[in-house]
């Protein structure tokens, strides 16, 4: 099989790669600005990971708590990220999230209501007040379907089952993207004056993960190749509660809403162990006994919040410790109990999808039995370094929003802040990409020889003499990352992981697959491997560099949080084909924002 010029070519002002929440929101904004816009999805439209988000969208709407406001949301977000967040992103996010939620309502989203008919808000980890707009526990589905309908209404060009593999850069600015249609295997060149990456994360590099096959770090890798910087890659969030049994469902998410609605974590001895794991940083605002924690659900003014709703990094570490100490559940997790805490009809109404999921997949009725849960790889806080206001990367014309972008969440993301992040920065990305395209006066060039070289490279797995199986390499990578670059890390293990990744990169060069180019998942997996391996390497290198414990990054050999490290990002970039990293200072936070972070009683 040789590379013929067998490709489709299309030209747009703005090409949005990725059609989850951030991508669709970006495309809607770009189109509204009058830009010729393409929206590229790796799957069918409306199937992105956003569909699986359960809990809700964090926004200080003040419908349930008048005391809430953007300043409190900003404070919670910064504290959740252990102050490593881009303060400007956290500020914009907190300020704009309410408008983005109300706009979804105008586009048809049906959120649960308060008694006076406004959008209801629920409690989540790390949020001082009940702040998450939600639809039972299927908020992501409501959000993506609403955005999808809006995109259809606006007549945006949606390119389904289309995978982008390389970005084209001409004279230092972005010029297009090159990839293939999954359904036919035919290549496709999308020329674009501006490109928005909204490709999500890379959780598929770990074995126990809530992420789907799509989460292979394509956007991060394409950006790196195109010369952009990545930051904070060492921060990978393990959601505390994934399913652990039966084995085939291991990792599937159990929403934090279970704890927000009264569920508690217990160990084998029936002890509510979270009270033993309250860190100094959150001591003043966290209940240290069961009685106060239970009172908090009813009276939030006069009691401190339950330790079950500490930020995710704290809860995941606590669960991990319980399991290691031999106090886990029979299948290697801990127990999550809502059945003894809330009536059956309340559980079915507030958590219908959890009820359904446990019933169908594990044969467990959560209104009668406790769940078994454990940490699962969920979210990459790191990603493409962007300008907070415009979302532009360090490459002119290349924008990034959503999980693929770094900075917003610092070292740990609060639940509910992802959906709002997608909306706020998705809109900003679409807006600034459209403005960038309007300003562009030149001609989009694409180097024919370069395109043919890429095409040849993409077809190599069909013709190589090797006999490596892409699925086996992916499984080995997942195993290595799970064991060596998981929740608790040490330099020895991280170095071991690097050697394994190197060996896997060599094996990946010998992958050979059968079949033709039409809808061939073996081929697709072989190509996805390249980006998975690149991101795995970036995470591991950055994790070695950061010699402290902070947020989701816990180093057994450096267990303390180091104030000096609190002022620096680990920046990863590619030079002469190798990945290099530097430590760079965070921008200084203005005094008035710093004042908001002080303890409040």
């Amino acid at each position, binding site marked *: 099989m040789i590379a013929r010029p067998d490709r489709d070519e299309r030209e747009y002002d703005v090409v949005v790669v990725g059609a989850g929440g951030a991508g669709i929101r970006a495309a809607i904004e770009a189109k509204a600005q009058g830009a010729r816009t393409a929206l590229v999805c790796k799957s069918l439209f409306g199937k992105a990971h956003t569909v699986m988000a359960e809990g809700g969208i964090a926004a200080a709407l003040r419908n349930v708590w008048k005391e809430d406001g953007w300043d409190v949301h900003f404070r919670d977000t910064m504290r959740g990220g252990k102050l490593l967040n881009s303060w400007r992103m956290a500020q914009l996010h907190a300020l704009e999230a309410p408008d983005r939620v109300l706009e979804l309502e105008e586009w048809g989203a049906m959120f649960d209501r308060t008694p006076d008919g406004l959008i209801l808000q629920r409690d989540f980890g790390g949020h001082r007040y009940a702040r998450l707009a939600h639809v039972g526990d299927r908020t992501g589905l409501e959000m993506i379907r609403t955005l999808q309908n809006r995109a259809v209404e606006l007549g945006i060009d949606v390119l389904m089952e289309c995978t982008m593999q390389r970005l084209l850069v001409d004279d230092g600015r972005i010029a297009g993207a090159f990839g293939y249609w999954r359904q036919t295997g035919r290549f496709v060149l999308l020329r674009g004056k501006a490109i928005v990456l909204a490709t999500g994360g890379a959780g598929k590099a770990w074995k126990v993960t809530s992420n789907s096959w*799509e989460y292979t770090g394509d956007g991060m890798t394409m950006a790196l190749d195109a010369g952009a910087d990545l930051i904070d890659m060492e921060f990978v969030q393990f959601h505390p509660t994934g399913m652990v049994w039966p084995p085939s469902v291991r990792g599937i998410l159990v929403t934090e809403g279970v704890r927000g609605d009264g569920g508690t974590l217990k160990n084998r001895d029936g002890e509510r162990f979270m009270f033993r794991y309250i860190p100094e940083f959150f001591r003043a605002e966290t209940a240290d006994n069961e009685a106060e924690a239970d009172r908090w659900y009813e009276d939030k003014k006069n009691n401190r919040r339950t330790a079950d709703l500490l930020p995710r990094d704290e809860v995941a570490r606590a669960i991990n410790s319980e399991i290691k100490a031999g106090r886990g559940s029979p299948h290697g997790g801990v127990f999550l109990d809502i059945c003894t805490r809330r009536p059956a009809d309340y559980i079915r109404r507030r958590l219908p999808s959890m009820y359904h999921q446990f019933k169908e997949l594990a044969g467990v009725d959560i209104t009668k039995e406790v769940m078994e849960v454990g940490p699962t790889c969920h979210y990459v806080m790191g990603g493409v370094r962007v300008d907070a206001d415009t979302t532009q990367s360090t490459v002119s014309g290349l924008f990034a929003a959503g999980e693929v972008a770094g900075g917003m969440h610092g070292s740990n993301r609060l639940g509910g802040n992802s959906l709002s992040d997608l909306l706020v920065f998705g809109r900003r990305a679409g807006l600034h990409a459209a403005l960038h395209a309007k300003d562009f006066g030149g001609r989009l060039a694409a180097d024919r020889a370069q395109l043919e070289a890429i095409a040849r490279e993409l077809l190599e797995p069909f013709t190589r003499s090797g006999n490596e199986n892409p699925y086996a390499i992916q499984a080995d990578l997942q195993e290595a990352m799970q064991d060596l670059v998981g929740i608790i890390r040490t330099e020895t293990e991280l170095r071991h992981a690097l050697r394994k990744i190197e060996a896997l990169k060599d094996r990946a060069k010998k992958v050979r697959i059968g079949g033709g180019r039409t809808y061939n998942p073996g081929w697709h997996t072989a190509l996805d491997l390249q980006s998975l391996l690149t991101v795995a390497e970036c995470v591991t290198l950055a994790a070695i560099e950061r010699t402290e414990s902070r947020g989701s990054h816990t180093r057994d050999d450096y267990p303390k949080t180091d104030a000096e490290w609190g002022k620096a990002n680990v920046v990863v970039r590619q030079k002469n084909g190798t990945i290099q990293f530097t430590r760079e200072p965070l921008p200084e936070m203005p005094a008035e924002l710093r004042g908001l972070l002080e303890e409040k009683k």
Partner: protein
Amino acid sequence: MRVFRGDASRGSFREYRVETDQGMVVLDVIHRIQATQASDLACRWNCKAGKCGSCSAEINGKPRLMCMTRMNTFAEGAPITVAPIRAFPLIRDLVTDVSYNYEKAKTVPPLRLKPPDPDGRYRMMQEDIDRIQEFHKCIECFLCQDVCHVIRDHDLKRQFAGPRFFIKVAALDMHPLDTRNRTEFVAREAGIGLCNVTKCCTEVCPEGIHITDNGIIPMKERRADDYDPIVWLLRKFRGQRPEPA
């Protein structure tokens, strides 16, 4: 397990022998076949938790989600067949061309909201939106479209939108703030008259949405009302229902 292999021009069932572990679902077995025996076996999937609606197939002749079909529901050692959904053109193996559904989505007249309350907010009561939230549970697996006789057996795709889009219209029509009338659309473009209420769509819905009883039948009744001169007169008299868009 007997899995359909082939493309639009030809194909047949091929048998694979696979070891299964506790708790496996059909999709796990397909993945194991891909990883160990047939790397190019085409199938769609995303969430593996019944939330995205990507892995629709016909398992032992029944339209189902592969991720929500547990292996322990079959007798040990009994042959299991997995075939692509039949109502849509085959691309390869278990993957079909479902673009018909995305084309139909473009024809549905979108929401047109009335102005907000004087304070700029919209208010809706939970009891008014409960029934809409039922329809919003739809994960677009298109299994209802797959089993609908009008689409599957009579192939009237041009003049018929199918159950998925009837409940979509029903949700829009029941929206407390919507001001558009979609009766003409439902009758003329969406072809609701072709539906003969066999309830096959409701039976296969993995989300348990009462597509027929709560969506299609009330819509058909309303359509009938529109042509009933007495109801028409009464409505004119009482001033119900907005004028057509």
